[in-house]
């Protein structure tokens, strides 16, 4: 009798689970503007009715990028209350996946941390198609210098570029002054950079100054390899990385940079290395500028620093750099899509870009006024305006649905290469093999 009850219960549980699993909902395309009517937008914002907008963000404590634009928007439209759902950057993608998987209407506005994650979001119908909104409001897309074009998926605009970061070269002016060496210029090749780093390396033990610092990301090798736009991280043959790995390992073996193994196991962050004056130079993203300005204000360090254009391979012009765009999109299940669109429109406009620039954050939209605003922000070094000019911009990682899986396997091989467990040729061959497997899935 008892066994029968148990059997019936189990059967019920399994069939319940089975039912739950097999509901096949036909995927709905992201909603469009047609249903809401054209006047809805204005009335939502102009009315006295309080509207709440949720925006998913990361690392609010260390960067003013999201707070500044949210505050500016709320000033312009006082009846909208913006709530930032903040997460630590390392956990952001995971947390966002979970939030969206629940089918919630929050967050209304989605800040996309790694551009490739928007591909998965689109495949899961989590992003709203912005085409109608863009057309209705006649958005001028030339201000993005082509960045928004690279964000289209299947020819449709699901996101707009909010922020753009590109790689530049930071240097410690005090350290250069101490040894009487000229600051890095705006037109160095990577070979000249290596020479300069060797010159600037000095000392031993705890007082050692490393010529430069390369963080543990694979980007510190692959970025310079893709700088000329001829290859990407989704290329089928990673042979183009070889020379760059040779340089990286050379710098490490000659102790011009700290060893990868040490940095990885000690979880040493690049911020502390630069701010504690352990390195004379450092190639890093433009986001670091606002961190440096803020940290100096907070008294965390006290030396003079500058920033120059990133070194470039021989044969391509100075000002060629790479980086990533932070796109922003709207949750397909949002309950206030019109208000969300107003926020997205504002955030990606030149008006919004100016707010970002005044807060030391680099917007995706560009113009002479924005470059001027960026260079005149408090704490920005006077002679470093050149670094803000970008002549050529490539994505450091292409937008591809398989990028995340390919990235996981090539980064595992990168690990082994950098700690010397495999030689470069074997490492690259492994990357080719495993990336091909990941792509084929």
């Amino acid at each position, binding site marked *: 009798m008892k066994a029968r009850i148990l059997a019936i219960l189990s059967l019920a549980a399994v069939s319940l689970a089975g039912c739950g699993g097999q509901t096949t909902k036909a995927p709905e395309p992201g909603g469009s503007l047609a249903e809401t009517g054209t006047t809805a937008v204005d009335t939502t914002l102009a009315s006295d009715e309080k509207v709440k907008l949720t925006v998913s963000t990361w690392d609010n404590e260390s960067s003013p990028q999201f707070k500044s634009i949210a505050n500016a928007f709320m000033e312009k439209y006082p009846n909208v209350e913006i709530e930032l759902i903040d997460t630590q950057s390392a956990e952001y993608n995971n947390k966002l996946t979970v939030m969206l998987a629940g089918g919630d209407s929050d967050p209304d506005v989605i800040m996309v941390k790694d551009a490739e994650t928007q591909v998965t979001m689109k495949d899961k119908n989590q992003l709203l198609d912005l085409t109608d909104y863009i057309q209705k409001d006649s958005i001028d897309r030339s201000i993005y210098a082509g960045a928004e074009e690279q964000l289209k998926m299947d020819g449709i605009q699901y996101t707009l570029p909010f922020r753009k970061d590109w790689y530049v070269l930071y240097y410690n002016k005090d350290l250069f002054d101490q040894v009487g060496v000229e600051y890095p210029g705006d037109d160095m090749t990577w070979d000249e950079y290596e020479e300069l780093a060797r010159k600037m390396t000095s000392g031993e033990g705890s007082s050692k100054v490393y010529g430069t610092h390369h963080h543990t990301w694979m980007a510190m090798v692959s970025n310079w390899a893709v700088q000329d736009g001829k290859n990407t991280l989704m290329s089928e043959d990673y042979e183009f990385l070889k020379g760059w790995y040779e340089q990286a390992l050379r710098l490490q073996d000659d102790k011009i940079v700290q060893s990868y193994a040490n940095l*990885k*196991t000690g979880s040493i962050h690049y911020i502390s290395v630069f701010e504690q004056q352990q390195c004379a130079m450092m190639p890093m993203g433009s986001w670091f500028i606002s961190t440096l300005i803020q940290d100096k204000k907070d008294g965390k360090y006290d030396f003079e620093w500058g920033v120059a254009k990133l070194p470039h391979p021989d044969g391509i012009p100075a000002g060629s750099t790479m980086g990533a765009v932070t796109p922003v999109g709207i949750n397909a299940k949002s309950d206030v899509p019109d208000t969300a669109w107003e926020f997205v429109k504002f955030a990606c406009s030149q008006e919004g870009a100016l707010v970002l620039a005044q807060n030391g954050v680099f917007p995706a939209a560009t113009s002479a006024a924005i470059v001027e605003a960026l260079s005149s922000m408090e704490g920005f070094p006077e002679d470093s305006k050149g670094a803000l000019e970008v002549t050529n911009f490539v994505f450091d990682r292409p937008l591809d649905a398989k990028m995340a899986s390919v990235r996981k396997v090539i980064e595992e091989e990168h690990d082994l290469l950098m700690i010397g467990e495999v030689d470069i040729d074997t490492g690259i061959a492994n990357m080719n093999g495993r990336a091909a497997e990941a792509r084929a899935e």
Partner: protein
Amino acid sequence: MNSRRKKALKTNLIGYSFIIPSFIGYVIFIFIPVCFSFLLSVMKWDGSDAPMEFVGLQNFTKLFHDSTFIISLQNTVWYALFTVPLTLAAAMLTAVLLNSKIKGIVAYRTVFFFPYVASLVAVGAVWNMLFQPEFGPVNEFLKWIGIVSPPKWTASVDWAMWVIIIVSVWKYMGYYMVVYLAALQGISDDLYEAAGIDGATGLKKLWYITIPMLTPTTFFVVIMLTIQCFKVFDLIYVMTGGGPGRATNVLVNHIYNAAFIDFKFGYASASAMVLFVFVLLVTLIQLHGERKFTDFV
């Protein structure tokens, strides 16, 4: 219904009402998800609104051709092979040593138990610092006693797993030490006295009385430890992230990556099924062995 059956029914109902809350929680959070997982292992699903596709045993055949899966299986077995006996020995030894009534014995027991309750993330970060290849205390000590090039620990494919094993033993022996301490209380002093009269020394007493009398507990500990070892994930995630390369990539790592990075829930569930079968097999073997090897008590 006569009054005796009524009374029995009432007692039963009272009993059930005590366990219903916990049982409902169990069904909702454990039983149903496990059944769902069984179902998912023969499906292909990316976790979104998209429909699930039935693919039969395809996930399982893919698994056995996946080099990462094979590596993670090997790593898990290697980890369990060493962690189980080492933790067991450490736990048993410390329990025997701390099973005395000297002053301050509680303090000693607390010290050994403390790692078990310490935060995993903090513990992982500190051990990483201790084992840092260039400036860490461990390598500084090894260089001081004359080992010219000490291993690079978590930055080395050969040694990374040993770091995890060492930290695991350190962290988990406290719990099993307490289990053994309890069991030791149950060994009658008469046995030791009798052995003493026959001229047995401390070591002989340990070998011929303590260890045999502890066999039931040892079996329990071995089963718990094996299951725990096969489930290891958090410590590895915090300390090495599965690296360098795939040196510390274990089964649960593979499941996690497949599900949350590659969004292949069906494939991840198939991997989880393999873990389930493995642990079940190991447990059954051990239970069978218990009947044959456990001493009379």
